[in-house]
């Protein structure tokens, strides 16, 4: 028969619990695998960009000068704010504050939508100037890198909206909900991180 003393956590138990807490991997294991694959591919793209850039430095500079740095900067701010709001939403969800988490997630989705709108405008400007992905090698990279990133955002925004709506409707947040949110947040942070590299690489580096 267990006594009261048996049920009191010992220092050893607490250490084990702390260790388990430390080892907790946020999100689903498979989302990490997806992020690994995605980032491995983008890393190769960045290396290829650097290689081709060295080969055609003047062409890359001239083409880069045609890009709209202002739109790129605003989009960077949008994604940073959006990522921050996702962090706030996750923190709130862990504390069981469903409404607060929902509003934060809705804000993140709003910034994500702003990114999509501005990026679409940027693509339209390029199309009006008769620039497409076949114009030169710089624009191949420009369209592939920013285009693939754009698709990631387009897929991610409905995901954020879904989270916002389901958090708003939920009365209590389960651990499974938090795990799912963590997976979504990881995806969104990767989208943000990729842009943080793409923006200086394609728009800024002189």
């Amino acid at each position, binding site marked *: 028969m267990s006594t009261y003393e048996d049920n009191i956590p010992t220092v050893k138990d607490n250490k084990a619990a702390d260790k388990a807490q430390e080892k907790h991997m946020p999100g689903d294991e498979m989302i990490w*695998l997806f992020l690994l*694959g995605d980032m*491995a591919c983008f890393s*190769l793209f960045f290396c290829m960009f650097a290689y081709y850039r060295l080969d055609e430095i003047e062409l890359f500079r001239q083409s880069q000068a045609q890009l709209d740095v202002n739109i790129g900067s605003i989009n960077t701010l949008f994604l940073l704010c959006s990522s921050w709001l996702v962090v706030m939403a996750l923190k709130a969800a862990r504390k069981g504050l469903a409404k607060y988490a929902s509003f934060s997630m809705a804000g993140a989705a709003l910034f994500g939508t702003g990114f999509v709108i501005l990026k679409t405008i940027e693509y339209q400007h390029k199309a009006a100037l008769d620039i497409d*992905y076949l114009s030169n090698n710089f624009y*191949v*990279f420009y369209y592939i890198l920013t285009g*693939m990133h754009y698709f990631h955002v387009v*897929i991610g925004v409905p995901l954020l909206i879904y989270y916002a709506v389901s958090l708003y409707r939920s009365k209590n947040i389960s651990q499974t909900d938090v795990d799912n949110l963590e997976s979504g947040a990881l995806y969104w942070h990767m989208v943000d991180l990729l842009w943080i590299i793409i923006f200086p690489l394609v728009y800024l580096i002189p």
Partner: protein
Amino acid sequence: MSLMDKLMQPMIGGALPVPADYAANELVGNLFTVWAGGFGLAVIPWALYCFFKKGNDIPLLMIFGGLVCSLIEPMLDHLGHLWYPTNLPGPAFVGYDLNVPYLIPPCYVFFISMTGYWAYTRMKAGLTVKGVFITWFLIAMTDVIMEMPGTATQAYIYYGDASFKVFGFPLAWGWLNGTSMLLVGFLLYLVEPYLRGWNRLFIIPVSVVAMGASYGMTAWPYFMSLNHDMPWIATRLLTLLSLALCLMIVRFTAAIVASGHEAKNPIEKLNGNPVPA
């Protein structure tokens, strides 16, 4: 042209050979090869880690399964009217007079087998009907993310007048591929508990069996719309029929998965459930 004329406009079906002069921009071709194939290569170290460190053999066996499954690709390309440019790195193999590029086998490893494995892990953890539909939707979106950059830059093309194209990508492939990957996970979920010892090797054909079955069940109306002569409106309706079939299959899958939240022995669980009157 009146609306009725447009709806009844005859569409000529049938597959066409890849034009000899169809070539992609070389850089685009290389980038897309990295994109579609890179994921498949990136998972190999992880699968080895799972096998040697965790004693989990499923990812490694599913990788072999994905490679075998890629042999279906030329049949799908032929029926689904897809052309690969003549200058993509490859061919890995030839089928139906189509050169299948190097990117396809590793692409199948990730996008068929590994996404299927992901669906399996979610089913194993316990999914509701809604959860199965969300899983299906996410898988379909993964396919869209992977394919649209390729079609938008013409690294490969879906030729002809396929229904509901966005950036050159027929949306039907999103729901067809999403369903096939979900069924890969579902079949694995059903059979894996029963495979012991050398029988574990039967995990390898899970991908190709489930994917083939899925296309047989859901893709035939879409393939009809591409390969038979018919009015324009019929091609669109048949494509929508393939969506309806996909939703039906996902719902059936969800009914079974949701009935067995404790997933250690799903078939036994199914047998124990009386058939509703």
